């Protein structure tokens, strides 16, 4: 009985599966093409839609041997971890008084932060560059980390302050009456409750810093400071004839990200929803 019911349900829904298949193809084809290309030699002129006749790994060997991709991954990792750490810590610290102080200063800071959040970073890249030149921060980790953190902070303050505002302040007050210090209250009572929003901030900021290109182009000028995007760009820019080698570099850059995304998908989706909900 049950089985018959199920079968008729699937038959009624056949168009859904067809549509789902079309969407899957449209969204997965680019990844498929990159992987296929990266496994074919440069001399292979068969269609990029056809899988390779035999797996050719030279392109990957070239990427790992002749380029700084591993060094670039290390750079991207350092920059991302540093940025995320600052954005999380300075972000939730600043969000706490915004959420708790209903006074004039709290409101002024909130408006300031929301204003800065709308600033498109690239529009003032020349000023950022010349600021960093004046403090000798070009091609340094700390230079790009502080810039990325400063541009990421408004978003994190916004997320944290919405979240903290929803935590009832009876707990803080009880602790204050017991004589607890503001710092103690924050780190013992508030901070442990911020885990869900911290995961969202961490993932959102992590992805955007990892993928960053515009500022990196201006700030990371020494080749041994290049991040992943700048290194992949080198492959496509200078060796345009070797598109298969370039495909391998793109695959090396995107596959780790895709794998992490697939494992943490649920948290990424939650982060996207949290960041979109208007406070």
């Amino acid at each position: 009985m049950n089985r018959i019911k199920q079968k008729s349900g699937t038959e009624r829904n056949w168009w859904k599966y067809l549509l789902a298949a079309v969407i899957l193809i449209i969204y997965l084809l680019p990844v498929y093409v990159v992987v296929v290309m990266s496994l074919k030699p440069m001399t292979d002129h068969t269609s990029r839609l056809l899988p390779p006749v035999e797996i050719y790994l030279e392109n990957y060997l070239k990427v790992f041997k002749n380029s700084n991709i591993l060094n670039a991954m290390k750079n991207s990792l350092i920059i991302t971890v540093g940025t995320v750490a600052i954005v999380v810590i300075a972000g939730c610290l600043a969000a706490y008084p915004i959420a708790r102080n209903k006074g004039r200063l709290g409101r002024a800071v909130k408006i300031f932060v929301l204003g800065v959040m709308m600033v498109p970073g690239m529009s003032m890249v020349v000023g950022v560059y010349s600021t960093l030149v004046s403090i000798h921060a070009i091609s340094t980790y700390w230079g790009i980390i502080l810039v990325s953190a400063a541009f990421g902070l408004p978003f994190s303050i916004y997320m944290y302050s919405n979240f903290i505002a929803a935590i009832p302040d009876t707990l803080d007050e009880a602790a204050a009456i017991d004589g607890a210090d503001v710092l103690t209250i924050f780190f013992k009572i508030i901070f442990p409750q911020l885990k869900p929003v911290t995961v969202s901030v961490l993932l959102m900021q992590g992805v955007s810093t990892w993928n960053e290109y515009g500022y990196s182009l201006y700030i990371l000028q020494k080749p041994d400071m290049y991040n992943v995007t700048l290194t992949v760009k080198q492959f496509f820019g200078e060796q345009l004839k070797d598109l298969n080698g370039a495909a391998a570099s793109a695959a090396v850059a995107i596959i780790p990200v895709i794998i992490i995304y697939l494992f943490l998908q649920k948290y990424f989706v939650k982060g996207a929803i949290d960041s979109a909900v208007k406070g």
Partner: protein
Amino acid sequence: MKKKEVKINFFYIPAILLILLFVVRPFCETIFISLTKWNGYSSDKVFIGIKNYVDMLKDDRLKRAFVNTLIYGFASTFMQNVIGLLIAVFVDSRFRGNNIIRAVVYMPIMISGLIMGYIMYFFLTYDNGVLNDMIGIFGYEPVDWLADGRRGILFITLINTWQYAGNCMIIYLSGIQSIPQMYEEAAVIDGAGTFQRFRFITLPLLLPAVTTAVITNLIGGLKLFDGIIALTNGGPNYATHSMMSYLNSQYFLAEKAGYASAVGISTFVLIMVISLLCNQYFEGKSIEE
């Protein structure tokens, strides 16, 4: 109590200090540089007043970039919202594997816009390009897709739409799922059809989601940069630049840092004005409801 409030204000310091040093100061510096003639590296910076801004009005390439920026912003936003909403309704309609669709449509957002642009280049090359292979199946001659500026603009818009439609999908999906089931049920009892339910119940209740989805994607499209660098680098003949990628070419290729700054400040003003107007438009709408 008073003392506690003062103490709590120390919490602002790290964040505000960073923002002042690395956002506000560079912003002021960009305004200053936009009033000078400077090549970007020498110590030779000459104050020329608003000449860069006056020059912008005479720059045909910039006019092209300005129009393109509006196309990238508004056309992508429109398509992202329509596609995102449709996919959200589809994913919400519950079938086995709907979560896979949600995960896959959101996936390209994880990938750098620059690298995605390069990947799409494989589809659009003349020799062996995937798109040429596909139309070849139907007997069409291969086309050099990116040799024509208008087609370049079209592809940049489509790729941007495709890559970020997942953002709209997620926003709409969470909006749809927060609509109480009883409204739908009441409408079914009243005899409303699927389309009527969508038009008169789902859509009005989604208005806050529409506001968010439109504004975030609009800002994203207006400041589009890395995808253009990867796909066309603004060419052929400056036809596909956005304001941001044009700024970049003025800085690096033309070594006009002062002029590039003026373009940057103008883009900043443009994006601010458009997003504020949009916000106001939607706020007006939500009061009407």
